């Protein structure tokens, strides 16, 4: 089993508010095979996301696989509500970057 970066098997990696209190990260895999391999690998866990973003496991609200779009959706609690004093990203659109460089074990 070799390793690759998530961006090599994804078509879209993005972040956005899901309401003012949650941040949602979407990964669209390039094809059905990549989606299925990623889902069945068990690699994407709350503790992985917590480590990647320096948050606690409880702040990772959900990790959901959506086959119709070959997509993975991860929702976390925003560090601060959108636009509250101290917030850094009102739309939440630039919080995906750590996923781009994420390295994962991969077959093929």
């Amino acid at each position, binding site marked *: 089993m070799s390793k690759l970066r998530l961006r090599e098997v994804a078509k*879209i990696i993005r972040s*956005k*508010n*899901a*309401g*003012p*209190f*949650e941040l*949602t990260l*979407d990964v*669209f895999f390039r094809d059905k095979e990549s989606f299925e391999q990623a889902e069945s690998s068990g690699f994407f866990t709350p503790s992985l996301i917590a480590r*990647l*973003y*320096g*948050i606690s496991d409880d702040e990772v*609200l*959900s990790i*959901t696989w*959506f086959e*119709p*779009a*070959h*997509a993975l*959706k991860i*929702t976390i*609690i925003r*560090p601060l*509500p*959108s*636009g*509250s*004093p*101290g*917030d*850094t*990203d*009102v*739309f939440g659109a*630039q*919080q995906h*970057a*750590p996923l781009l460089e994420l390295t994962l074990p991969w077959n093929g």
Partner: protein
Amino acid sequence: MKDEVKVLSPTAILGYGFPRESLKEGLARKPDVIAVDAGSTDPGPHFLGLEPEDLSGIGQFGRVIRADLEPLLEASLVAGIPLIIGSAGGAGGTLHLMGVVYLIRDIAEKRGFHFKLATITAEFDQGFVLERLRAGKVEPLGPVPELTEDEVRRSVRIVGQMGVEPFIEALNMGAQVIAAGRANDPAMFAALPIKRGFDPGLSLHMAKILECGAIAADPGSGSDCLFGTVRRDHFIVEPTNSARVCTVRSVAAHTLYEKSDPWRLYGPGGMVDLSRVRFEQDGPRHVKVTGSRFVPDSVYRIKLEGATRVGYRTICIAGIRDPGAIAHLDEMIEETRKRTVEQFAEVPKDEWELHFKVYGRDGVMGRLEPRAEAAHEVGLLIEAIAGTQELASSICMFAHTIILHYGFPGRLSTAGNLAFPLSPEDIPCGSVCRFNIYHLIEVDDPVAPFPIEITEV
């Protein structure tokens, strides 16, 4: 009964624009209604927390909203089909709605248009929310604290997201144009199909895809049209611009957009269950969707959004290029905080705040940033928030002078640590708000909280 309802969505948000050709092509398909979303919580709490003495309700957005409104009003009148605008003016309060209604009336007067206009307001008064809160009929939505009576009283404005019911009521009253305050995004698009008896699951799922215009197409765009047709057992979505197509992936992908759960689309009165959904490429440019099912809630709940005023903000923007200053930046910031606390000791500590953002290091992600290293130059945003604009400016100015002249160990550049791109260095930014209500409220009637007024224009 006709066996389909056709809905034209001209653009993702009123004011984002659309190619005139796309609108023409959409109208050639004989839509039964034109519907458009005009707001969001995305731009943050400031807009919901506006006071009448702030900028006019829709302020800088007026020009672009008018540019979209005029052709849409004309199209609606020529075709004799309703135009439905929801979350008018952005945050969807009455102040914002009236800004859009003013534009509608102004266009109508200048163009000699006459029609029946329905306005639907979406503000909830504090007394009603308090009474429901005491009755245990208000609950947090997601990772939000329980609502308290103090927070309700502190709110500048509370809006509720209306469902399809008030729109259906306005259509039944004969409205040609409907301008509504805060609404659940899909409600404007699903109202006519549901009124005509089409399946609410299919109607609402189609509406969810349509509400962002051509974002669900490939290539995606928030400034172009999307056309939806709902029938008895399926719906179809297709862009009207021949340069775009809908694919299974582009449509399925949009189902995830800005939602925490892609399998369930929650809204007023219930949710759309997508566990049995099927997306099919039914032609080169359109996608057919089946299997979306509406599951009603046992009680009718509406999402409330409220904002409260925190204070006034003054900012200072500066660059740092000296490697020593960059290396000692955290120390300089800490020292500045300390000195500022001492300087403003007479102001209670909970009545002002000082924030620093270091661009080129962790300014974008803050505590979520996994990388610690800074670039060879960094941008510093100093932000002071206090009870008055004058105090915020004093705090900001004091803080910038401390950093400017801070003598970090090994400093060679004794003339100053900051490069200011602007004069004045400290910029007053006006009021600061925060979202303080994001809760579900149980109501007995989906229409009553949203008063409808009909006028002849």
